């Protein structure tokens, strides 16, 4: 570096920023591009580590349990869950909103942060997008199976029939069908498209025929030509543009499931932004939960650096504060609005039979992320990991509080009730974690979990003007 700067005349020489203000590099230790490829692809190519087998050995049976529970549910009746009158939705929709919320971080990172030129996104976007897809799959299960006659769930699709039976387009559940399926489709495409250059890398590095064929098949003949790159970049930008409104729309529409109804506690206009903020909050929580341990077991600390973790913590802090504000605002409006039913609904939330759920939610979602004001905590991986889990617990409770406590006590006291989950409720939910983790473990074993080409793109040497930059100098691209 000194060699290069010496050649510049003193007049145009810019003072180097003091070391404390210098941006931390996104890839530490000035690793060469080849090292990056080797390192990331190595996670998928190397021998399957023991911890993977252990994790898989836990998650796969859990996933099977989920399917057994679903089979029991569908064959026997929704009554195997703890639902009742008046609480006709509880863990089913709670889990749906919870998983959908988690699915928010991926697309936010890949689309919005891309458009905002947040270069740090490259280290985490692949894993986050995969997480999104798997989370939306887990989420999608619940609306499908929670209906009384799951074998007719396809009636929600707008399929023209000979007797002109269409779905009811006024229903927010119908909007959900479109919102979630669109979101899933676009997220999947976005993720896959981003994978194409890396699949080509995997193909080129393949050690046996089978891998070569399979990776080659999915790499769609990628040869990294300039034309390919040019088309790729354009498509990526377009998809990012398409996905951005989806990030906001999906959870807004999910929130309409509640906001459009007329129950005190559901019928509020604050829900769409509050749900979106909550979703990003929980999504980043889940990204942290996954990446913090992964970066150490897979030796990716140089690519997913402390700076990355810190930045994500800051997002968690910001969205957590928005969520906290929304909680407060709900109470304020309940009081200010002068509707006694509304006021009672919020009174019951905080001090009614589900007070414990409410205060768990407040502790986890409002208080715990405030710890991220402290750099010490943001950079302490154990603390971050714990808080990220707490955030997700809190966000699950938020959905539970909104759904179950509202339904349990609304207009007519004679009809008030209480929801308690059954083992089937619990095991189905736990089972979806099995599904999620199984898919994620398979993903990291077979696909590069960090976008190799994108990470390379943000290394200093990727800049053609960089002394180490330019084609041919930094290993294959």
């Amino acid at each position, binding site marked *: 570096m000194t060699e290069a700067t010496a050649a510049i005349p003193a007049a145009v020489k810019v003072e180097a920023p003091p070391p404390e203000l210098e941006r931390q590099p996104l890839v530490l230790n000035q690793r060469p591009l080849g090292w990056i490829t080797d390192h990331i692809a190595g996670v998928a190519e190397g021998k399957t580590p023991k911890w993977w087998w252990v994790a898989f050995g836990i998650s796969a049976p859990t996933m099977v349990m989920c399917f057994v529970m679903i089979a029991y549910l569908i064959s026997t009746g929704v*009554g195997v869950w703890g639902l009742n*009158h008046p609480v*006709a939705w509880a863990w089913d929709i709670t889990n749906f909103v919870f998983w959908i919320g988690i699915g928010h971080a991926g697309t936010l990172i890949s689309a919005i942060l891309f458009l905002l030129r947040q270069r740090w996104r490259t280290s985490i976007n692949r894993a986050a997008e995969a997480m999104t897809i798997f989370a939306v799959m887990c989420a999608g299960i619940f609306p499908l199976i929670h209906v*009384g006659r799951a074998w007719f769930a396809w009636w929600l699709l707008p399929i023209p029939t000979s007797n002109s039976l269409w*779905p009811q387009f006024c229903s927010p559940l119908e909007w959900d*069908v479109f919102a979630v399926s669109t979101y899933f489709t676009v997220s999947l495409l976005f993720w896959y498209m981003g994978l194409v250059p890396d699949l080509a890398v995997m193909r080129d590095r393949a050690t046996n025929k089978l891998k070569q064929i399979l990776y080659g098949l999915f790499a769609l003949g990628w040869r990294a030509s300039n034309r390919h790159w040019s088309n790729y970049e354009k498509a990526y930008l377009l998809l990012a543009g398409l996905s951005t409104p989806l990030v906001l729309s999906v959870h807004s529409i999910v929130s309409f499931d509640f906001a459009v109804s007329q129950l005190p506690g559901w019928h509020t206009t604050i829900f769409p932004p509050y749900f979106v903020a909550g979703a990003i909050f929980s999504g980043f929580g889940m990204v942290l939960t996954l990446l913090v341990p992964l970066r150490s077991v897979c030796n990716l600390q140089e690519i997913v650096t402390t700076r990355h973790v810190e930045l994500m913590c800051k997002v968690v802090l910001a969205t957590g504060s928005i969520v906290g504000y929304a909680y407060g605002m709900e109470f304020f409006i309940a009081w200010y609005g002068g509707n006694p039913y509304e006021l009672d609904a919020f009174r019951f939330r905080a001090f009614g039979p589900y007070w414990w759920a409410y205060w768990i939610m407040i502790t986890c979602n409002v208080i715990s992320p405030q710890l991220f004001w402290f750099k010490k905590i943001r950079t302490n991986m154990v603390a971050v990991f714990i808080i990220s889990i707490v955030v997700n617990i809190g966000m699950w409770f938020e959905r539970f509080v909104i759904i179950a406590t509202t339904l349990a006590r*609304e207009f*007519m*006291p*004679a009809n008030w009730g209480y929801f308690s989950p059954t083992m089937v409720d619990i095991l189905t939910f736990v089972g979806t974690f099995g599904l999620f983790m199984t898919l994620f473990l398979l993903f990291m074993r077979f696909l590069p979990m960090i976008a190799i080409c994108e990470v390379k793109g943000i290394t200093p040497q990727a800049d053609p003007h960089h002394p180490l930059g330019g084609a041919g100098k930094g290993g294959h691209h």
Partner: protein
Amino acid sequence: MKTIPPPCPEPESGPKYWRSLDQLADTPEFREWVEREFPSGASELTDPTTRRHFVKIMSASFLLAGLGLTGCRRPEERIMPHSKMPENQVHGVPQYFATAFPLRASATPLVVTSHDGRPTKIEGNDRHPDSNGATDQFAQASILNLYDPDRAISFRQGGHAKSREQALDMLTELAAKAAASQGQGLCFLLERSSSPTRERLQARLAQKLPQARWFVYEPVDFDIHRQAATLAFGQPVAPANKLDAAKVILSLDHDFIGAEEDSWLNVRRFAKGRKIHRPEDEMNRLYVVEALYSLTGANADHRLRVASGLVQAVAARLAMEVFKLTGKHAELANALAALAEPAKPWEKWIVEAAADLVKQGAGGLVMAGYRQPLAVHLLAHAMNSALGAVGRAVQLLPAPPPAGESLEKLAAELNAGKVDTLVIVGGNPAYNAPAAMEWPKLQAKAKAVIRLGYYEDETAEGCAWHLPMAHYLESWGDARTADGTLVPVQPLINPIFGGLTELEVLARIGGLAATRPYDLVRETFRELSGSAEENAWRKFLHDGFLAHSAAKPVAGQLQASAVASVLSEAKPVAAPGAQNLEVVFYRSYSTDDGRFNNNGWLQETPDPITKLTWDNAILLSPKTAQALNIGGLDEKAKGNKTEKGLFFNQVAALELNGRKLSGPVWIQPGMADFVVGLALGYGRTKTGRIGRLADGSPAGFNAYALKAGTEAHAQGARLTVLPGARRQLASTQEHGSMEGRPLIREANKEDFARTPTFARHMDLDSPAHTGHIANDAQGNPKPIYPRPQLNGMHQWGMVVDLTSCVGCTACMVACQSENNIPIVGKEQVAKGREMSWVRLDRYYAGTVEDPQIAYQPVFCLHCENAPCESVCPVNATVHDDEGLNLMTYNRCVGTRYCSNNCPYKVRRFNFFDYNRRPLDQLYRSPFSLNKDGQVEAVRWLKDPDKGTVPADQWDLLKLARNPDVTVRMRGVMEKCTYCLQRLEQAKIAKKVKARASGDVRLNERDGSVPKTACQQACPAEAITFGDIADPDSQVSKLKKLPHNYSLLGFLDTRPRTTYLARIRNPNPRMPDYDARRPHPQTLNEYISRHGSPLESHGAKGKKESVHPPKGAHQ
């Protein structure tokens, strides 16, 4: 819907049309026709797996029996259709038959719907002179007993099945033996009955077998009314309370709305005197003195809670005051002073109530309940006599004493070893005889016990012979209703299991020539009507009663000396205490005395006071519980504490004179202190699949275990909590307080007079009043979605008068019967999954010690702007142009969003296949064995229609269904439809009638608007249904009343069912009347939260003209 044509007398001469099967029976064509059973649809019916298989057999046997192909020579036992002639019988179109539901010494006149030979729905006979077509919950549910798979189905000797013929041979032998010994050693134990034929048979048998003894036992016996009146007036009479003629009614533990005989009749008369539509309308006033919180207490304007034993003191004090004010029966006053002593604490209450009674004079009415001793009854009669009410508000009907001695006498006979053959007809003494009697042991002392019973129950054990009894819908019989009118009990179906009737058994034992019940009943009819004509008989069967056969009231003069002598024997009763509790045994609102224990509809109909299902409990007042260190009261919820929405109540042991029982404690607000309430009719050790819970334990505990004799209450009980023991109870309502919300809107008569529109001022502002929502031309908020086009010919609507509604639950059972609503079992009710389409909300207001109760039946309100419709993603719930909120079961996928968005929560979801699974197999997966020992999945592949229900149950279950209403499968939402099937039937009938005239609109003038099942069953006529597009309809008129309001109207749901606010009529001079807050307690609670709708809204009342109240829409 029922079009009742005038009876068609068939001329004896002139052309004869065939109208009975026998007339055609001899023709070979007809024989062939019968063999083919259903010529028109024979091919489709031959498939043994069709659901009509069983019906077919039933119908066939019915026809064959009538034809005499089984050996009879001539037809008898013919059923006269009530409205439609056989030649007009259309397959699938129901027929209606008049019959009666005999219960104890009375009967309810009925019209029963029959679908293709199987009775499906019971309704009251509104042509009967003393009926408005209403029934009580027991009559409604009695049809389910007919289809009870657990009923006795075979003749048994010592437990082994025998043929019917063998049993009849046995009876013939018995008859011969009895005739030889003149009935020596032969004892009959019967239930009470009003059947003239049984009376006649008893008399005949008494002649033929003079040594035979007759005994009658009823665990809940209303005969005391007759006994007391007979004693008081010195002639054989029974009192008939004309509540509609009374202005002030005082009940001395007389639960005439719920537990007394013929409550449906009392409710009708009581409600008649309480119809208040305008402030100037007259309204009766009800004072209730009672220990338990009864339905009558719930409807009281003033309620005094005292221990049952102290009712006597209150009665005495009241009588003293009445005698003093009226100056009559002064000679009795001396005897009363001592008796009245314990009533000191309630002096003012009693004095003012007496003053109010006396002020009304002949319009006053005092009634004593069956649980009270003779002295209280006599005091009531004396007071009525002093008031001049005898012959007016209380009439005396001739009532000869029934033949039969008491159970105690029979016990003595048995102990003395004097009983050779004991014939037990009905009843269940082994279960419900006083525990002190140890009946099972006594019964074994008879040399042989022959039992005719509906169930093989506790009494059936150890019987030499057990004969299955026919259901009343399978039997020929007769009965007398409360007013003495003769009514027929005619069968609608041949005995499904070949059971015998009481009349037949008696006739056979008597060795009479005629043993067929039909002949016996006809013979009685001939005697009573004095007419042997066929037409008279036919008219009797057609109308369902014998006109002008009602008993003529007689004049009566109080026999003061007789009263005085009984009073002189009465002892003052001390107040109970924590270590000397008073136990009150009461007739259960659900299982009666235990006879409906195996009836799922009744087991699942919540007790209207406690809201408990499938259980009874040890009821205690909050103060008693506190004194006994029993926790579990939730002051805020005004009820028992819940743990996560479930009741796990403490179990206590109750001891009374050495007899013990244990059961869960239920803290019942409003009960008298140191009183323990025990519902009879639970805890059966030998009952069917319904009477036992899923775990095999009986539903509830047996309260008879504490009884020493026939007393209905006793002092000296001690209660100890069993540490750690808990029992889960299933209540359909967990929260008892209305939380100051304007759900039931109540006011006192004065409030109503001052502000008749008070109910409309109690809602929140509707969205129409807010500035930010645009309004349409009518001033209603502009909808986002297009509203349903309500341009149908009719516009259906309903009004529920909360002043009239007494909370009797008849509507709930009627709806269950009409609409094929399944039962779900205790475990599911506890979870909140009961399926009843009608919810009867019961709220307490005021203190938990002495609260007021208010009832509100809530069903689908058919909102014009229905929140459920816009959220259904598959268009399964939609609106029709006549204003009905429809539910398309076929289209429903079961997202349950509609239920969530319904502010009234009236939608019910089938969490399991309740219709096709036994209650204890709801959670079974398809890979487990079902009750028939088959893997469920395999069964499903073979017969997807059947479900896990055992075959015997399934066959009967199918018969009980109303074929006009879809049986819903699991995963489907359901709710009240305004009895859509009845509307459609009525429309079709009207169209058929209209032909080319085009007059197809249903209207009330020609009676073509059908009644909904709940409306039809309601004895109080609190439910009015009709066409609100017709300005002359009753419902339109009611909707215009000032106190008509929409529930949660501010949500702009615009419900088609609206409520008339409840008006109470308290006496301002009573001590429990708070002059500072002279309103019903619910209104006080509302005012403390929202301000008064009566005063502060005076200004708002003017505003009304600018903004018409949206909550009171239509």
